[in-house]
């Protein structure tokens, strides 16, 4: 067994009003990938921030390489050899790859100018250690997210990190990019780096994880060898109760009534001649790999992006201008995958967000807003959707991810939407809240709404939809009836292999090639 490199003993941490960590113990060995899982608020982030020096523990001991350490800030932790990769990358988009890796400690020439040559050479060497080939002179924002993440990993490695903490590293990656990331993680592990891996995507852990620790309510519930624990046990321990089923019972019955007819939607280079129908009471899934055009299709239907050809008809009537305001008036709602960037005005209040797409519904004909009516409407949805907020005038930024998602849903319900397009509705949302979102989607369909659900998680597609559209590189590959299909079939279509060919289960460890695709 490998030696323990990082040892956390009885660490506690309180913030005003909450005990974020309650006598937590945890250890990490050299050359292991140790998964840390738990619902939002379980204490994972707090522990991570303590290990990386952002927070200081109230009590308890942290030993790194056998010596007790007290980090006062993240720079100290980093210099000692504990690196952290946040979900949101901390890189500078307009600088080159090499400049990003060496930012703050750029090598200089004798004339005190930047030594670009050395910087680029060193960058190649560091990337090479991870078997990554990226041109170090390329501007960072010309790389896809996955490559940017590799750059972040390389940067961290350039500090000779012996411990690397990764927070939800796959949340923005496509399937094949995830394979690339796992290859890099394997390389790191083989070099003896200890990796703490935090993820909501339990499915992916099996590819890389050696041990798993489960957190709940600020306590460490258990630590096991990954091979000795089942997925059900993990989920049960995370939520602290038995989750009988991951998805709600389905009672919605698709009707014969066509509510939406999409014909020949084309956006040059993005979407190619896509046609489909949506029926009242149906839940229609959009499946496909990232970059297949699922969100783009949804945005095109909603009028958020311009299209080159095609028509969208709602209840037999063509939408003419294809703009968000027209779509909303017709009863289409789009719940973006980027809640914070596109769905919510996070510095505005809950009530103001709920009424945002239908302020007319709470104001007089002269355009004067009735605060009373606005609060009443908001209260109705807070009750109906069980939105947990201290008050209706709370700023949305202060709510949890799941509750923010509910606020977005409330916003669209308040518009009397007939079609709701959910784009990755459960991304970044913990297991317990996921179920509530699924129930909500099912209920909406049951009440006669047409639902489109975009998801990267195939179990979710299989568990929640009536039919699935599978997209591949902007084209509609297949329309499948969910109960007659399988995960494998969907994956094959999504990979552009048609219905027959086999897809290799795990990506081969090939070197990552440079790419300039955005």
């Amino acid at each position, binding site marked *: 067994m490998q030696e323990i490199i990082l040892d956390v003993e009885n660490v506690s941490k309180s913030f005003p009003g909450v005990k974020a960590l309650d006598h937590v113990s945890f250890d990490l060995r050299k050359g292991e990938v140790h998964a840390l899982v738990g619902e939002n608020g379980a204490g994972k982030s707090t522990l991570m921030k303590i290990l990386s020096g952002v927070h200081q523990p109230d009590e308890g001991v942290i030993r790194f390489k056998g010596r007790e350490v007290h980090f006062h800030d993240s720079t100290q932790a980093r210099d000692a050899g504990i690196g952290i990769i946040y979900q949101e990358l901390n890189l500078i988009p307009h600088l080159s790859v090499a400049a990003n890796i060496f930012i703050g400690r750029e090598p200089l020439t004798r004339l005190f100018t930047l030594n670009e040559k050395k910087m680029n050479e060193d960058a190649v060497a560091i990337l090479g250690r991870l078997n990554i080939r990226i041109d170090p002179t390329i501007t960072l924002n010309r790389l896809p997210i996955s490559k940017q993440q590799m750059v972040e990993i390389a940067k961290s490695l350039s500090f000779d990190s012996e411990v690397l903490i990764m927070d939800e590293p796959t949340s923005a990656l496509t399937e094949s990019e995830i394979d690339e990331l796992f290859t890099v993680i394997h390389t790191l592990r083989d070099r003896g780096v200890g990796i703490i891996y935090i993820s909501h995507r339990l499915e992916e852990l099996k590819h890389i994880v050696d041990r798993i620790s489960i957190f709940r309510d600020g306590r460490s519930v258990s630590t096991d060898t990954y091979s000795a624990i089942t997925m059900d046990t993990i989920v049960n321990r995370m939520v602290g109760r038995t989750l009988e089923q991951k998805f709600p019972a389905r009672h919605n019955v698709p009707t014969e009534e066509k509510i939406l007819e999409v014909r020949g939607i084309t956006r040059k280079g993005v979407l190619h001649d896509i046609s489909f129908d949506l029926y009242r009471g149906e839940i229609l899934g959009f499946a496909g790999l990232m970059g297949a055009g699922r969100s783009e299709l949804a945005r095109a239907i*909603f009028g*958020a992006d311009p299209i080159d050809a095609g028509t969208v008809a709602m209840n037999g009537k063509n939408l003419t201008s294809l703009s*968000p*305001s027209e*779509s*909303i*008036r017709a009863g289409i709602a*789009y719940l*973006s995958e980027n809640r914070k*960037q*596109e*769905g*919510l*005005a*996070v*510095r*505005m209040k809950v009530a*103001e967000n709920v*009424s*945002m*797409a239908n*302020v*007319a519904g709470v*104001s007089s004909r002269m*355009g*004067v*807003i009735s605060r009373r009516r606005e609060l009443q409407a908001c209260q109705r949805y807070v009750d109906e959707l069980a939105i947990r907020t201290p008050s209706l005038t709370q700023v949305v930024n202060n709510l949890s991810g799941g509750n923010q998602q509910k606020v977005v849903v409330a*916003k669209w319900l308040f518009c009397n939407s007939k079609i709701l397009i959910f784009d990755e509705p459960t991304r970044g949302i913990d297991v317990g809240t996921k179920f509530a979102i699924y129930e909500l989607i099912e209920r909406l369909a049951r009440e006669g709404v047409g639902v489109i659900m975009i998801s990267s998680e195939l179990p979710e597609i299989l568990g929640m939809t009536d039919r699935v559209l599978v997209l591949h590189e902007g084209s509609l590959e297949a329309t499948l009836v969910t109960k007659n299909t399988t995960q494998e079939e969907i994956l094959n279509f999504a990979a552009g292999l048609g219905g027959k060919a086999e897809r290799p289960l795990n990506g081969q460890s090939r070197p990552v090639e440079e790419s300039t695709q955005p």
Partner: protein
Amino acid sequence: MAVDRFLTFGAVVVLFAVFSITAKNFFTMRNVLSLLLQTSTTTLMGIGVTFTIITAGIDLSIGSVVAFTGTVAVIAAIAGVPIWISWIIGLVVGAFCGFLNGLMITGLKLPPFIATLGMTFVVRGVALTITNANAWPAPDAFGALGNNTLFRTGPKFPGIPYPVIVMAIVAVIFHFILRKMRVGRYTYAVGSNEEAARLSGIKVGRIKIINYIICSTLAGLVGVILASRMVTSQPNSASGYELNAIASAVIGGTSLMGGVGTVGGTVIGSFIIGIMTVGLTMQGTNYFMQQIVIGVVVILAVAFDQRRNK
């Protein structure tokens, strides 16, 4: 929020008290009225620019628009247009400048800083060209708006100057628009998260254009008031006034990042500047020193705001 407003309002009261004690004749009816009159124009411009700043924009063309609209109104009056119509022409010309700003920002997708900076030069140039850079005298009746007062009872109470009354009415109306009306709500939404606003069906471009029109129309109002006060066209005047307006908004808690700001805050902000200017002058502090003090206050106010919002 209520506490914050209380704090800034408290600052006004404290300043007022300090100057009442340290500056002779500060706390007299005549002086208070003159202070209100002086501050009224900054407040009007500040209210306008607050709207554009809330949408995460800015309007640098205010000073030039003030000079231009005043000039146009005077020319109209000289040409024989009825006086009150010449004032309205000033407002309409202001609105048109704002419309152009809005079009450049939403249509050509120019950053507001650049669009309105360009407008600054263009409008100033037009004002100078049509007047040949001269100050033209207006008919006497043109001076009513800037010089007459209401409720005059004699030398003891010279009456409330019209511009002060205009300021009060404008502040109330635009407070109402911003806080109670749809267009105001959309203004906040656009500044807080433009993409979310667009995807909520808000016509972002239209809202921005409306905001720039509001800003320039109020600048036009100030242009007319100032030209009326001087009873002449002043194509060279009002240079840099936009900076006072922006300072008022910022001291009043408006965030240059967008999404945050109130009419009430801006009114208080412009009074903080106004009271200091008048108070320091009456104390005998020279003009250069005043500039330093006001600059420091702007910086401290925003620094305080940043700390508080952390």
